[in-house]
């Protein structure tokens, strides 16, 4: 899916990547490349949750995974 850049990525202090922990991995163990910081603003946290929420469309009774 091509989507808009999420709000939480506007400030590098609001999220972490494996890089920040000295890891060469692109993704954390949960498969995500970003984790939101506990001290990020609520709006950034909401943006993060929306960014990683699954998008599924049901058409003709079949659930379609959207990527």
């Amino acid at each position, binding site marked *: 899916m*091509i989507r808009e*850049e999420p709000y939480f990525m506007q400030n590098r202090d609001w999220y972490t990547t494996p890089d920040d922990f000295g890891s060469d991995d692109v993704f954390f163990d949960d498969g995500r490349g970003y984790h939101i910081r506990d001290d990020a603003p609520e709006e950034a946290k909401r943006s993060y949750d929306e960014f990683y*929420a*699954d998008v599924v*469309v*049901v058409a003709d009774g079949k659930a379609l995974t959207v990527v």
Partner: protein
Amino acid sequence: MSYGRERNNEKTKLLGISSNVHVTNLGGPTDSRSDVLQLAQQAGFEGVYGTDDIMTQSMGLYINRISQLEREYGALKEVPTDLAGAGGLGYAAAASYSATGGNATLILNRVAMRNAADVARSQARSAESGFHMPTDGRLTSNANYTITHEYGHLLENALYQRAVSNGYTGTRSQYQSSVFRQVSDIAVNRYGGNSSSLSGYGHYNSAEFFAESFASANSGNPTAYGRAMNDWLRSNHL
């Protein structure tokens, strides 16, 4: 897939409502333009639904791009695929497929994808910010970036479906993780790739990693990850 065929406003239901991506009014009547239908059929699409709001020249550009990619990679031949317009917010285009196999769909947002020139400008901004991979800067490369990225998703799905039919027993997620590790190893060890060789969106998860690396590989200015994807696809094709 029968959704939207010859019907307006096929009822669709959105799950995952906490997402900021809203896909509505998926599909619709068959595209009314005979030249668009002919191009799409030649490219390999099963059908084209609900896309009349997208400008004819833009549709021609997108479908021609798919046609080029299809000749090289064959995703639509492997998994029957519809092209469908949709409404909603928060996205420009998407690919969808059933978890249990069956047809795939390339979804174009009727507003965001209406004019390819606007798509090109949007991509140029996203590449400049680092959220998307860079292209060679040509107007057509930027206009086609979105379509190329989505074709990457269709190709990965086709490769996974082929692997399953050949006896692969892992989940889709496990397959994507495995592909990521292989491509990443090539990028780092063969081409000196690092974190900055991958777009911000490519860091989202392994599915978008594939699509972003694929788009980089096919947009005229591949990064280490784009070059690595090219190498990987040479030995992992349909």
